[in-house]
């Protein structure tokens, strides 16, 4: 593990929310690292804590009710959790850029797209507004917006969803950050537009050595873009590996279930395999392994019901938090059925 290649290192991050109904451990001991010029994807279902992880890195968690209880977030060796708000504001934008799921609500409707990019640039750089304008138009070209000089003076509502997301990317990249956090960047977009945006992110990464933290629920998006994947379930990373390895041989029963439950192009009508039950309520996580209530292997195993497994390196570079993942293959076949009756 060579440290000079690592840009971001998150260790044992815990972010909790204190609500009326109790403490929600939204992120509970998450660790990962992102190398320069690489893409790390956090995959998981709604409420698994993947977005909270991203917001914790940016320190944009609303406090209260949220609180980063423990852990460390190092960007290029610098501990971000020790910084005060002013220093952190400098990091946001200039070191870490962020794009969101819904490009309409993340752009201010009363300002032109151009002026919003200019503002982002001038927040971190002392340059004249004319230079900033030139830079902004240059950015619009980079993100593939046709007729950039005209688009500069248009308002967000005049642009289509895909164009707005491009503007968001231009803004996020305006100060040449080293890390881009993309929180469900294509979820609100159509497939043809999604393909365009993912392609754009790849091109930008290749040309600027950008590191990307990709947050998504869509395994298919991950397959085409990420180098390393962490699968999150109930506030923890339950499996982590290189993309190729993870897709070739998912070890955690949850990951396995996810793969089997998505319909794929080219597969004919058949029963999909399902993961039974629903995502557990973060106020009321089951004891032991949090997945055991939905797991066809661990449901009745005493160890799974009482002891929580930790991430361990099951194969070289392939980490998994499951007591039974070594014996997984055989167990999967003996699973009787998932018929809904």
């Amino acid at each position: 593990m060579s440290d000079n290649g690592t840009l971001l290192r998150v260790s044992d991050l815990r972010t909790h929310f204190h609500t009326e109904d109790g403490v929600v451990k939204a992120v509970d001991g998450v660790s990962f690292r992102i190398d320069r010029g690489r893409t790390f994807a956090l995959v998981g279902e709604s409420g698994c804590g993947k977005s909270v992880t991203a917001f914790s890195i940016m320190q944009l968690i609303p406090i209260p009710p949220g609180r980063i209880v423990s852990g460390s977030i190092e960007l290029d060796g610098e501990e971000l959790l020790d910084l005060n708000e002013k220093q952190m504001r400098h990091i946001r934008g200039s070191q870490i850029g962020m794009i969101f799921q819904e490009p309409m609500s993340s752009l201010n409707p009363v300002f032109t797209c151009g002026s919003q990019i200019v503002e982002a640039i001038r927040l971190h750089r002392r340059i004249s507004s004319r230079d900033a304008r030139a830079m902004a138009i240059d950015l619009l070209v980079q993100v593939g917006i046709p007729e950039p000089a005209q688009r500069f003076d248009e308002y967000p509502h005049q642009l289509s969803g895909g164009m707005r997301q491009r503007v968001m990317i231009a803004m996020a990249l305006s100060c040449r950050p080293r890390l881009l956090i993309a929180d469900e960047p294509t979820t609100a977009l159509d497939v043809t537009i999604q393909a365009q945006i993912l392609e754009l992110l790849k091109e930008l990464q290749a040309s600027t050595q950008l590191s990307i933290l990709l947050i998504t629920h869509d395994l298919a998006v991950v397959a085409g873009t990420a180098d390393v994947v962490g699968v999150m379930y109930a506030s923890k990373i339950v499996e982590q590996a290189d993309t190729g390895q993870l897709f070739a041989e998912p070890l955690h029963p949850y990951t396995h279930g996810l793969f089997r439950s998505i319909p794929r192009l080219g597969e004919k009508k058949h029963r999909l395999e399902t993961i039974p039950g629903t995502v557990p309520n973060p106020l009321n996580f089951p004891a032991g392994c949090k997945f055991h209530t939905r797991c066809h292997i661990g449901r009745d195993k005493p160890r799974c019901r009482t002891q929580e497994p930790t991430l361990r390196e099951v194969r070289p570079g392939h980490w998994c938090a499951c007591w039974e993942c070594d014996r997984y293959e055989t167990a999967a076949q003996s699973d009787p059925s998932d018929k809904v009756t």
Partner: protein
Amino acid sequence: MIEKNDDIILSVRGLKTYFPVRGRLLGKKQYVRAVDGVDLSVRRGRTLGLVGESGSGKTTAGRTILRLIPATAGQVSFDGQDVFRLRRGAMKALRRRMQIIFQDPVGSLNPRMTVGGIVSEPLKVHGGMTAHQRRQRVGELLDRVGLSKMYVNRYPHEFSGGQRQRIGIARALASKPDFIVCDEPVSALDVSIQAQILNLLSDLQDEMNLAYLFIAHNLAVVEHFADEVAVMYLGRIVEVAGRDALYEKPTHPYTRALLSAVPIPDPNARTTRVQLPGDVPSPINPPSGCPFHPRCPLTRELAQAMDETETREIVTLGESVRVVRRCVEQTPALQEVPGDETHCHACLLRQGNT
């Protein structure tokens, strides 16, 4: 093969739904052509998948068919009855047989009503049942969609998205319909829940011989679920075929682009994507001729080898492109693919003489 006519439960002819929009002051009244001439037919006990991007008018089409939105033109016949001409009483009776399932599991359930109240509403509206019978039926329905009977007196906000979707399905099933419009029933759900709901819908279809109009934007889900598939673009059907034919031999360039844009959950998958430039144009001012021509890769390609007189210069996304003249001037109609009557498409360049 041509099916017997009585096998078709729903047939839609020339359906148009326009919404008036206020233009500029003193300007001409403009219309959003959400649905602009759609022909469909759904067979008894089968699923027709309706695929399209946002703005293609697929949701509007589904709602117009159920007469929840007034149609501008066209005809919908449901089991021989002309839906748009029915009087109030007859329409109410027909509503028993056609139902809808919504995308948004939050907005589709009244937050002030109990689950029992929600599911029994169609039963109450149509009457003919005592309170005791209704309670029993609600219990059966909840049981059937995989929810506990205990939930009867609870409220929607106490459930997860997948469970709410099950409640919505139970409500749709209450009046024992023959046909259900499923409007993106799984796209708001988590991946692991989607499969549960899809399996449930497919079991219900087998059991009750339900016909579905399955509206979705996810081509993989549609391939998994539908028997026939129609692809919509800017309010029109551009291609319709049996599932296998459509996915194996897509003919319309839009269908091809759509299929190749679907991300594949396999990092080693080939990435020869047909990238479409730009976005879906506004349905207020759709492009002339074939509405797809400004984004169409095929017309650009063919135009290069063509004579000046047969092509035309158009400006799209700030650059000028040469496209085939016919695509700009002629509106294509759905036409059969030679040798397969069930496979129709609306691409001028692949029809007839090319």
